[in-house]
């Protein structure tokens, strides 16, 4: 691969590799190899489970850990309360799972050097649109199911805003329909692109650092040092992006659910 030629391939970090000789696992002809991507899903799941389990002490006066878990559930609860209203409470489990799963995936994917030195490379599975796409389709499916369940065919009135002139209705309907159908794509792509862009940027900068150092002390000073400083800054930015993208995903999902719950 590229790394063997002494160069850093910024895309290599997104490559999926089967682990533990599972490359040929199949169900009904579909490959279900346990890949590095699946491994990090498992790690995110276990980490999230440990995090939430630590907050299950159910004490009247919460400790720090319980307080942290409760502030996350309270945060999601408030988010749904603000965007959907009282009916939003029943979506707390889903939105919480979505938000925390994406958040843990994003943050775990950022874990830098110490693990890499041990030969374990963090893998950010939210930088794959197969993954974000499935999550987006899940959210979209919930919106559709809830919308048609609650409002039957009246759900289509979502595409006709109040006060639309009669002549304009077909046109507006088509525009609203397209903007509605585009939602799962924008939802999934946003997360995928944001995560991928950040990781590519970090990787490119790190290749600057390495190449600069290899080219000699002068280049090291001119190129590597500023690149390294920039990397530190961008790492901080990426942590912020990890949180923001998880939040945006949860927020948009709750907004879409609001459409389904309350129409307009």
């Amino acid at each position, binding site marked *: 691969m590229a790394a063997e030629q002494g160069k850093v391939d910024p*895309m*290599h970090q*997104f*490559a*999926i590799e*089967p682990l533990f000789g599972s490359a040929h*696992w199949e*169900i009904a002809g*579909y*490959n*279900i*190899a*346990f*890949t590095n*991507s*699946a491994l990090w*899903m*498992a790690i*995110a*799941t276990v980490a*999230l*489970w440990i995090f*939430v*389990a630590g*907050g*299950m002490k*159910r*004490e*009247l006066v*919460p400790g720090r850990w*319980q307080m942290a*878990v*409760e502030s996350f*559930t*309270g945060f999601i*609860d408030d988010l749904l309360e603000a965007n959907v209203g009282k009916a939003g409470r029943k979506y*707390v*489990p*889903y939105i*919480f*799972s979505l938000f*925390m*799963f994406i958040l843990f995936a994003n943050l775990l994917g950022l874990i830098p050097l110490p693990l890499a030195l041990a030969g374990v490379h963090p893998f950010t*599975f939210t*930088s*794959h*649109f*197969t*993954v974000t796409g*499935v*999550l987006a389709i*899940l959210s979209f499916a919930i919106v559709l199911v809830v919308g048609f369940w609650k409002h039957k065919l009246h759900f289509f009135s979502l595409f006709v805003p109040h006060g639309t002139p009669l002549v304009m209705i077909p046109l507006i309907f088509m525009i609203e329909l397209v903007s509605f159908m585009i939602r799962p794509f924008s939802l999934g792509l946003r997360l*995928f692109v944001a995560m*991928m862009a950040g990781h590519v940027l970090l990787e490119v900068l790190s290749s600057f650092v390495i190449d600069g150092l290899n080219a000699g002390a002068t280049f090291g000073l001119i190129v590597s040092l500023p690149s390294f400083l920039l990397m530190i800054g961008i790492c901080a930015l990426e942590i912020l992006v990890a949180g923001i993208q998880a939040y945006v995903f949860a927020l948009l999902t709750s907004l879409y659910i609001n459409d389904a719950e309350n129409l307009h």
Partner: protein
Amino acid sequence: MPQIAQLAETYSSQVFWLLVFFGFVFFVIGRGMVPRVMDTVALRDRQIADDLAAAGAARQQADAEEEAWRLRENENRAQAQAIIAQAKAEAAAASEKKLAAAQKRLDKKLAEAAERISAARGEALNEIENVASEAAQDIVQRLAGVTVAKTAAAAAVKKALSHG
């Protein structure tokens, strides 16, 4: 870009494992653990609200009791003042009665005295008439040598006296 280059060979495993792990997250953590965490929060909130309500109720009760105490106190004071006023009134009435009785006694004594005085005066007047008529009889007998009847002398004296 591995996301696209490897799409055909990896999409099924990606989707499968994502559904497995996200399903676990949703059903075990989201539906199993999160509601209990939120129950704890709700329980705490309710307890805090209950405690606040209890404190509020206690304060209200204290206020009500203070109000009742104030009312009772005012009533007692009013009662005490009423008793004092009544005692004053009774005392005033009693002294008035005593005064009235004393006055009546005095009046009676005065009236008796006045009666006695007028009786005495009447007696004195009679005495004077008698004396005057005897004197007149005597004078007439001595001067004129005529004996005048006692009644005539008395009538004459009465006439002269009433003419003053």
